């Protein structure tokens, strides 16, 4: 028994478990220390929770694009961050124009719908162009090739936006209708904007999920992601389905971009990178290629990132733990890939899918 164990348990495994173990210990010790100090009241934790959920919802919208494309093409659409950014960026110009004319505050719901429509359209256009120019010709190429193309496309788009519209960060106009808070009684207070983000993202995800699961196109998408060749034999136009997948992911990312801007109120050409890499982490966390997994992973990551730094690190006496929230997210990615590469919900990945 022990001999068999020793044969299977290599030095590498030992190392990995050592890393994993020490991180888990750190987390547990840190959490206990923070909680026992009691610096943070229930109200703080509730704030972190809601903020984490809102953040996670935005991640989820981006993660859907990664997961859909990965499910079908088995490639990481590295330029998805720019799909996200471009929609938000163009949406910003409409938002500012409407703010100036007073339409944004006079007719908030309609104005928001217009911003969403513009952002989603732009994102979709960019994504379709990307697919057409950068990915489709390389579908048969070795794996590294489209990945590098995607990195190149990402930089190209980023820099195009920067040089077109200037390097400086711009402030997103604020909407009077979204200022203020809802009191839920007791210490629980929610900002209106966070409610909007969570509800809008939830609706969008529901719509997308139903589309993929209930419609004919959705069925075709799932078929293509199972097996392209068989799907095409069954009379499915694979190219068209791939384009639709990109469209779907881009629309979600565009909407996510607007929500992200409403929440963080700042915009520049590099804004896509960090949330997108987090969203990708979340997609892997949930099991890439799996829609509910991406949503679940995103919410989880959002919460982790908002609560984690304080909970794990504050008690250990780390100064300014919030600076390290990205470290927590990336560490989580590494841990997931080491210990459960299939993600939370991704059984299929380990066998046939990836």
């Amino acid at each position, binding site marked *: 028994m022990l001999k068999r164990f020793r044969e299977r348990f290599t030095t*590498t*495994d030992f*190392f*990995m478990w050592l890393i994993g173990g020490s991180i888990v210990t750190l987390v547990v010790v840190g959490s206990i220390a923070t909680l026992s100090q009691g610096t943070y009241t229930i109200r703080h934790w509730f704030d972190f929770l809601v903020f984490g959920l809102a953040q996670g919802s935005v991640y989820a919208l981006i993660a859907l694009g990664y997961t859909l494309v990965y499910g079908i093409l*088995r*490639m*990481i659409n590295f330029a998805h961050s720019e799909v996200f950014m471009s929609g938000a960026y163009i949406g910003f*110009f409409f938002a500012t124009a409407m703010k100036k004319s007073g339409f944004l505050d006079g007719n908030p719901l309609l104005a928001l719908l217009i911003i969403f429509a513009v952002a989603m359209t732009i994102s979709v256009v960019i994504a379709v162009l990307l697919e057409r*120019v*950068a990915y489709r*010709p*390389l579908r*048969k*190429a*070795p*794996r*590294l*090739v*489209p*990945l*590098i*193309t995607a990195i*190149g*496309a*990402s*930089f*190209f*788009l*980023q*820099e*195009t936006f920067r*040089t*077109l*519209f200037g390097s400086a960060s711009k402030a997103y106009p604020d909407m009077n209708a979204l200022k203020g808070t809802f009191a839920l009684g007791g210490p629980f207070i929610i900002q209106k904007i966070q409610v909007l983000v969570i509800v809008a993202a939830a609706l969008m995800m529901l719509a997308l999920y139903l589309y993929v699961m209930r419609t004919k196109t959705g069925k075709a998408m799932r078929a293509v992601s199972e*097996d*392209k*060749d*068989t799907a095409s034999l069954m009379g499915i136009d694979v190219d068209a389905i791939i384009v639709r997948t990109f469209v779907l992911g881009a629309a979600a990312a565009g909407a996510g971009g607007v929500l992200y801007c409403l929440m963080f109120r700042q915009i520049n050409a590099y804004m896509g*990178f960090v949330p997108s*890499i987090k969203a*990708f*982490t979340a997609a*892997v966390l949930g099991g890439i290629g799996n829609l509910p997994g991406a949503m679940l992973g995103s919410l989880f990551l959002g919460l982790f990132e908002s609560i984690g730094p304080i909970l794990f690190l504050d008690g250990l006496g780390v*100064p*300014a733990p919030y*600076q390290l929230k*990205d*470290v927590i997210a*990336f*560490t989580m*990615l*590494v841990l997931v*890939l*080491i210990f*459960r*590469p299939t993600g939370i919900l991704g059984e299929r*990945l380990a066998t*046939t*899918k*990836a």
Partner: protein
Amino acid sequence: MLKRLQASNWYSALQMGLLGGIIAILVSLVGMVEEFSLRDIVFNVIDMGQTILLMILVLIGNFTYRRSQSARSLNKWLEAALAGAVVGLMLWLLVLLIPALNMRAVFLNASPRLIQILTFGNEGVIALVLMLVVGGIGSLAGAVIQTLPSRYSNAIFQGIIWVALIGLLQELLQVILTTLGAHGATNWLFGDKGLSVVGAVVIFGVVLALTLYRSGNRTTLQARIKALPPASQWAIRWISFAVAIPLVWILPTILTTYPTDVANSVGLYILMGLGLNIVVGFAGLLDLGYVAFFAIGAYVMGVLTTTATGPNAGQIVWGPQFTFWEALPISVFAAVMAGVFLGIPVLNIRGDYLAIVTLGFGEIIRIMAGSDFLKPYIGGSQGIVEVGVGQIGPMFFNSPRTLFYLIFLCILLAFFISTRLRDSRIGRAWKALREDEDVAQAMGIHLVSTKLMAFATGAAMAGLSGAIFASKIGSIYPHSFKLLVSINVLALIIVGGMGSIPGVFVGGLLVFGLPELLREFSEYRLLVYGALLVVMMLTKPEGFMPEATRQQELHDAMSEGGAAPPESAPKLAKSPAKSGS
């Protein structure tokens, strides 16, 4: 009606024109035309901004001609001219719309000066006619070049490229020629900015003649060397080294300080490129967090040698104040250890996932370096200052000129190690790994040690580069270690050709040397990289100086791919990780 229009050749010319127009508008609006107009290629005749627009016209004309289905050459020419005129028309519309819509509020570069450049300073109908005519003629030229036999069109392209290149590098070349004592030559060759008209004509003529002569000979120099017996090939290689090394050695005495400094930066990137070439090019492990090792080398050097230690602001708590030479091997060793430690967790991770995880590692290192948490030890966002400088006898390695020699020697060392490793057993194991991990393992290659060896060797070179970088700059800040550095190095080895060692040098000079010397260019460097990476992957995935086997593979994969049986699909999409192996 519409169907008939779509079927006609004019329609496809129109499409090409629209495409060219969009590209030209984009180039104008991102500010390239305006910024580049400051640099003359031929003094007072043509500047680089105009050249770019002209290149677009020529290419559009060329493509239209090649795609055209028309039977007669005349029709093809007319179609090309139409496409060019469409580009002109679209730019004219842009010129019209900029003031009308007050586009400058959104597009920062839509300035009056841009309008002036695009319209050649004219207004109204004259501007329109002029733009249409120039557009048409530019594209027509592109089409006419295509009609010539390929050796002539090739020679013309070569001539244009060389004129542009020499015109752009006028400042540098003038300095070199003057130091070499060729004062007379510079006077007639160059103008105040860029080439003189005479110089341009002469260079164009010489390049044209040389290219024609060479293409007449059919066999290239490379092919002829390959045909020689191995012993002579070996001799030729060593003789070329023996000539090249002294040539580079005297470079700093010819160049002024600024170009030498540029050469040093390029050298550090080449050093990193040689390392990443081992990881990505040889072993096929796409590492996007390569900057981490560069950072570790720099930080170890910084902490070990800084004299700014103590409890005050801007100082770090602890530092042994080693000398540069004591700290250098430790920095490299630290980077190697980091390579192994970061390599172990990712042993089972492949392809895209590896890219993301290593990217994560790189970001973790950067964020940690800038955090308040580690501030007392490595300086946080304020960095480390007063990093030590190397010294041999009376010679201090702190001026560009002395550093040049240090970097040059390090590159030679790295180059030697790279070539030896490439041809060794481990080098072949890396290549096997790159081709197919499972098969490599089945063939008895020990995956763990082979992969770790690649990470460690790559990290060593990055660490060395980082350590010298820290000493060169004299201070270290976390923002020097952004993801961008990794991407830059990646771009370098892709442009040069993945897995090709000479390619690293070519890539370094093209990707860093050129933009660094053309300072107007720096604003658009990343934009051009991005486009370059995409275009490169679409047209020439093996790079400018391809490694022979890799070129073969890529082209095989591309051409066979279409007919690949379904069984090959799961092979392409490998599982990202196999736990518990």
